[in-house]
């Protein structure tokens, strides 16, 4: 860069960044949410994160080695660390090691390197990894424990589970003894299913429920299809406070990114607006849905998805109007999937579906209006 422009770069901090700095800034924005999650759900969250990052870096190094690319240059742009961290936040605390390994492999290899490395993958790597895990290991990816403030840290059982995760021993496989109540979203979904008494809930997949999608506590224990004890999901119950505070933390991180100029407002705003309007349409169309509107935004991974997953520049369209359509698409699909599909939280699938539409949107929304 010509020194004459150093003065320009000093004058405009937004222009001072490069790819590494962008990725590290986004990781900083993730810290508050992750810390809060660790406080609510115990050390398992931290081990998830660290192990996944380690595994993803190993897979990335291996892939770069195979392609005779410089590992240092490839690794120091930090994109794989970010993807691993995002995936870790979607998984329940202290999942078994094999889930982490397969998740890391899917994210790094299938999500990114099979397409030729950074910038060329059409699908968001973290979401590819998460979708693979979700569909292959429904049990492990949806069994969340009940959020207790600092509870997890002093409960010997959590430490034992964490230890079994790290040593990859499959000792502790019995279901959690403290299986707790349905997640707000899970309750919300079963309510709608019960209301419309459709036959599908009897289909094979229905026993498995409560895909947390970065949130939600699984209440319906496994295949038995018996509803967990629902100690109420009303406002003020332990679960709702946990998830609202988490979404608030994600919102704080997201606003920081917006303020620093790393992401543009088009996408999150379009997504949240579309989600709200679709939800309102649903309340009109299916009056039996009871969850009050503001909580729809705060429960589940909508805010987390809007600010951290959907705004991944590589897989999102790059022209302004295309981003608005892309955000709106994710918002609508997310609510539709929440109401109808087997997985109460559809952010992962909504993002993957709209990633598929991004190249077409880019081609269609060409900015050809004159100055």
């Amino acid at each position, binding site marked *: *860069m*010509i*020194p*004459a*422009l*150093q*003065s*320009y*770069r000093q*004058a*405009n901090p937004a*222009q001072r*960044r*490069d*790819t590494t*700095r*962008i990725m590290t800034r986004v990781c900083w924005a993730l810290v508050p949410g992750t810390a809060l999650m660790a406080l609510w759900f115990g050390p398992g969250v931290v081990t998830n994160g660290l192990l996944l990052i380690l595994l993803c870096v190993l897979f990335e190094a291996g892939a770069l080695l195979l392609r005779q690319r410089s590992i240092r*240059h490839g690794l120091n*742009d930090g*994109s794989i660390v970010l993807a691993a961290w995002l995936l870790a936040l979607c998984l329940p605390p202290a999942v078994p090691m094999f889930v982490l390994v397969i998740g890391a492999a899917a994210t790094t290899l299938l999500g990114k390197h099979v397409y030729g*490395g*950074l*910038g*060329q993958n059409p699908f968001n790597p973290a979401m590819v990894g998460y979708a693979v895990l979700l569909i292959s290991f429904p049990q492990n990816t949806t069994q969340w424990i009940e959020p207790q403030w600092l509870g997890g840290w002093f409960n010997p059982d959590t430490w034992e589970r964490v230890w079994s995760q790290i040593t990859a021993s499959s000792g502790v496989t019995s279901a959690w003894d403290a299986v707790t109540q349905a997640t707000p979203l899970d309750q919300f979904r079963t309510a709608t299913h019960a209301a419309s008494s459709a036959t599908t809930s009897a289909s094979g997949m229905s026993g498995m429920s409560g895909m947390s999608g970065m949130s939600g506590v699984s209440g319906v224990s496994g295949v038995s299809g018996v509803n967990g004890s629902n100690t109420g999901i009303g406002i003020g119950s332990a679960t709702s406070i946990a998830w609202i505070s988490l979404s608030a933390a994600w919102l704080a991180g997201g606003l920081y990114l917006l303020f620093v100029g790393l992401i543009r407002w088009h996408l999150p705003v379009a997504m949240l607006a579309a989600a709200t309007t679709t939800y309102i349409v649903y309340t009109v169309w299916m009056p039996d849905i009871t969850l009050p509107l503001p909580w729809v935004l705060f429960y589940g991974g909508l805010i987390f998805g809007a600010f951290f997953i959907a705004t991944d*520049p*590589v897989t*999102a369209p*790059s*022209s302004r109007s295309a981003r608005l359509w892309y955000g709106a698409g994710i918002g609508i699909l997310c609510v539709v999937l929440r109401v109808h599909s087997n997985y109460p939280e559809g952010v992962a699938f909504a993002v993957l579906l709209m990633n598929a539409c991004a190249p077409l949107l*880019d*081609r269609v929304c*060409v*900015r*050809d*209006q*004159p*100055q």
Partner: protein
Amino acid sequence: MKGGLALSRPANSTIDDQIHTLPLQATYYLPAVSYSRAVLHSQYEPGQSVLRGESIAQGVIAPTSGTLRAQVNHAWPHPSHLEVPTWELEADGLDTALPLAPLAQNVTTQDKLSRLTMAGVQGLGGAGFSTAKKIERVLQHTERTLIINAVECEPGVECDRMLMQSHASSVIEACHALVEWIQPTQTLFAIEDDKQSAIDALTSDKTHQQNPVLTWVTLPAVYPSGAESLLVQRLTGLHLAPNQRAADAGVLCVNVGTVMAIYNALNGNAAIDRLISVSTQDLMHTTTLSVRFGTPLNAVLKFAASQHTGLAEALRLNPTAVQVGGPLSGFSRPIDNAPILAGCNALLIGPSHQSQPPSACIRCAECATVCPANLLPQELYTAARSDDHDVLKHYRLDACVLCGCCDVVCPAHIPLTQWFRFAKGSVAEQAQNEADAALARTRSEQHAARVEQRALEKAVADEQRRSAAAAAKHAKADIQAALARVKRKKPSA
């Protein structure tokens, strides 16, 4: 204008507010290359003496009087770093000018245009397009607009500002003369608001106040508001179609230096010199020189160093490389005796810095936010890498003015502008091949049709000849039979 970069010089940088004229050089180098890079030929013999202002070939004017040497391959200030056939002109020191009578006002337009061509007036804004051709196209339109482009938006290029500041009255006169000639319905004088000293000098001029024919347009100092296609679309609201020049739409957008060159040419002195700003790479010191075309680069820099201590220090530190052109649109070259030409508006002493090795594009669209032509550089970049001309056309590569803003903001340090230069070259090359193929095809079809026609005619002619021969043979036989009968009837005869 959307996008663009608000570039500013370093706070404590100094600008030498005096124009230094370069003394006469011993030899001048005149490249025999036209605007479209075709090799030129001249009817002048080596060793023939020429006067100052004499046109050696189309667009090549002798900067001083002297003897013309034979063409020789010589360095040329162009990104290709190729050597081109160049005439060497040995100055005889007398600097006698070719007598050119000033043209009266009522002379026909054709005489004025031929005078501009003979005086070698070219665009000084950087493109170097022949001004006479440009004016000729504009004059074909009844509804004409004149834009005088004094928007010098690239930091480190100060020659227009110095010209307006020190020759305000002649600039106004030149503008009035051009308005008189072109008779535009609207005249806009576009200038940046950070050139207040120049604006004051011009507006306080008496002739302007008596008949204010120019309307002032002050633009915020954002690079690259001076690019012709962007400035025209911005001031006239006209949307130029791909590859359509402003002149074809009746808008004459001309650099203020070129306006002076037109005025001088019409008054009898050829366009043989221009103002150049020489500064250091970090733009701390800048000075302005008046240089004749063909002056070797090293002479210019040596003279600039002699006039300014800051530049002398910079030249001492890096004596080998210089950047020709502004900080963003310039290219680096070694310091040698390559000649200064009309298109060169600035020199930056020191090599242009290489940014870090590029990493992968993460499609963050920062470049799209700063692109002044409202394009999607990230899509153009992917298409340029795979040389896909349909997609390049789809995302309007031709609207790209190669300003370099996207390079500045790219977090992956990708040399986007160089990719777009390569893409434009490859698109132009294919267009040329297709044109040649179309020409060859029509000619070969005509050739085939003619050969076929010729064969047909020949066949018909043969047919007639054969039947005629047969008829002739038949007739001869009848005559002999008749003679034989006659002989038998009169044996004694």
